[in-house]
């Protein structure tokens, strides 16, 4: 056991820190879940890409630095520590990219990876449908073979598509074989949202931003080149992506450590008038963020040795999502009556609370994750 970073890693940390401090937008950008903010975030993403900070762990040919998993974690810690902007490219670089690396052809990788890393092309996820939420295998949007054109025609509706109103492309599952059993007969497609037959309707989220969208598809042509993985094998491909969403790649510890730290600052600023129970909650949040960090280091050591993690990613998702809610609720307690304000210095906490509350819903609800833990890790019988 050695719980120190080596010199090269410390140097990497210093380099990250210096660049981010120097280049971080100040004042902070408006929310990336609005049209105006999204455009400004694209510019920021482009500058990250140009300095090779957008996707540090990727191969050089696609804009990365071939950084180790440890270095990637260090980058994330520094990024959130500095309060740098949210990553509007996340659905591409953190969720689709791991799947493209695992299942994509070389020409798909060449075509899509650099453009997604530089934010030239932004991606949204198309899983959920009006009748398919937790029960994702219930999706109905269909893909019909078009032999003459050499591709597929998609028809149906996707919903709750994050930043769908601003993004260029969508990845998701469509039913290509209506005769097959539920989890079979699905195919993973990469869809151009500018194509004929696509209509996108923005939907306002809880926090008032147009962060959601409904995507309607009517006979939308997708060429064979934009099928990811094998035809009718989309479920397996999709599961690889949802694993990334629940686990490490989307929610590295850095972001929760930074929130915990800001919570400690908030407690200090409150002086002596703090309810001991609220103070206790601050301390707990801080310890929980530490626990999350060290559990991640424990896991990354295993990954670095070639082990794979499976249903454990459900534990990770439960932990970060509930920690995030607790931290923001604690902030509300400390802020007292000013917690309701959506202007002024405390507004970020209310914004953050509303976002945190989504954590137990997206990426597989926490009820579903607890079922997964009980059935797959503890071996309890399925109903």
């Amino acid at each position, binding site marked *: *056991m050695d719980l120190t970073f080596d010199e090269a890693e410390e140097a990497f940390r210093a380099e990250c820190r210096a660049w981010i401090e120097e280049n971080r937008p100040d004042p902070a950008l408006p929310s990336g879940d609005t049209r105006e903010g999204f455009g400004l975030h694209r510019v920021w993403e482009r500058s990250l890409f140009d300095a090779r900070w957008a996707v540090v762990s990727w191969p050089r040919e696609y804009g990365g630095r071939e950084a180790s998993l440890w270095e990637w974690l260090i980058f994330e810690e520094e990024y959130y520590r500095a309060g740098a902007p949210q990553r509007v490219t996340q659905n591409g670089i953190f969720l689709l990219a791991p799947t493209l690396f695992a299942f994509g052809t070389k020409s798909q990788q060449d075509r899509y990876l650099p453009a997604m890393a530089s934010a030239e092309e932004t991606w949204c996820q198309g899983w959920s449908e009006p009748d398919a939420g937790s029960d994702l295998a219930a999706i109905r949007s269909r893909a019909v073979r078009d032999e003459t054109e050499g591709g597929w025609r998609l028809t149906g509706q996707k919903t709750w598509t994050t930043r769908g109103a601003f993004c260029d492309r969508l990845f998701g599952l469509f039913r290509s074989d209506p005769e097959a059993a539920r989890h079979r007969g699905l195919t993973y497609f990469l869809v151009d949202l500018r194509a004929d037959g696509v209509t996108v309707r923005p939907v306002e989220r809880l926090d008032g931003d147009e962060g959601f969208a409904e995507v309607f598809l009517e006979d939308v042509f997708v060429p064979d080149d934009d099928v990811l993985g094998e035809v009718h094998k989309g479920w397996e491909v999709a599961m690889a992506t949802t694993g990334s969403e629940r686990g490490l790649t989307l929610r590295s510890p850095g972001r929760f450590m*930074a929130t915990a730290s800001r919570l400690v600052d908030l407690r200090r600023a409150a002086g002596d008038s703090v309810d001991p129970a609220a103070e*206790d909650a601050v301390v*707990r949040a801080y310890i929980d963020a530490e626990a999350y960090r*060290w559990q991640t*280091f424990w896991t990354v050591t295993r990954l670095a040795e070639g082990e794979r993690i499976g249903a454990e990613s459900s*534990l990770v998702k439960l932990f970060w999502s509930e920690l995030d809610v607790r931290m923001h609720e604690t902030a509300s307690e400390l802020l007292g009556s000013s917690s309701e304000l959506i202007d002024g210095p405390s507004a970020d906490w209310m914004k953050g609370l509303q976002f945190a509350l989504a954590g137990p819903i997206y990426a597989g609800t926490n009820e579903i994750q*607890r079922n997964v833990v009980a059935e797959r890790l503890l071996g309890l*019988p399925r109903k």
Partner: protein
Amino acid sequence: MHFAFTEEQIELRNAVRDLLAKECPPEVVRRAWSGGAGRTDRAWNAMAEMGVLGVVAPEAIGGIGGDEVDLVGVLEETGRAALPEPIVETAAVAVPLLAEAGDDRAAALSEGGACASAIAPTDDLAVWADTADLLVLFDDTGVHAVATSDAELERRHSVDGARRLHRVVARLGDSTRVGGPDAAALAFDRGALGVAAQLLGLGAQLLDTTVDYAKQREQFGAPIGSFQAVKHHLANVRLALEFAAPLVYRAAWSIASRDGERSVHVSMAKAHASDAAVLASRSALQCHGAIGYTTEHDLHLWMKRAWALGAAWGSAPGTAAASRARSCDDRRPGAEIMSEAAPYCTERTRRGRAWPERPGPKGQERES
């Protein structure tokens, strides 16, 4: 960065697990409840023979020459078995304390020829003190090792009938002192780490037992483990243990490597491990129903140990009364976190932990 145990460390832990499965099954813990000394004899001797008591003792005095990272998994297994022995007090606290002080008594302790009890600076009572040869006691000048024969003991009774508690009256002075405030702080950290490790083991044992029961017990024509409410109780326990364990292992490393933040790391570990084990107890009982509510069932052996250890060597935040929330005289990490700049956002300041100013534990007299 490499956060994992070595093959040898895993082998040692597994060997201890196998040994305790044989020498300390629930019947043996039960016997300690009713038996004279409240201990095991055979399990203790077998552990001594294996060299487990001397894991952190230097080779020069016949020990293994290991450190807390080697020991932490072993202690976890003693928790799993609810071993009714002062192994934390002896192997984790007294052995390294005395060895570092150049005190001869370390050798006998690490070989199993003698054993020690202790009263943590947060606590008032010593466990198995009547059969211990030596008592580790703290006051504001440091840490002391007192022969039990020189102390007066008064028996108190724990909810965990295997834990034979004693109030201790002893004279502490220059002749009994084996270390100053720094040594005392280190000894306290070692004890708290040891108990945190045992709590992890207890939590895991409670979870495993309950998962087995939930698969086998049927109601409404189905195993109760197929009901979502039961699943979620047990998933919560798994979750709590999953995130407590890395804090405990990290704290072990921090002690072994003399990290400047060692005491805060130990506090965090103890806080999480206590909460996880207490949650495991509550959930285990709930999922067993009435059969878990009888002393005829083994569940209570682990549950009561978890309650006792959860509160010993400093309790978790949240379980501590609100009035104690801001005091520094507990194993709570709050004071450190609040008073120190949070390391995530501000430069880390290296510092020694201020030893809490409080009078010596109740019942101890000091030489004037």
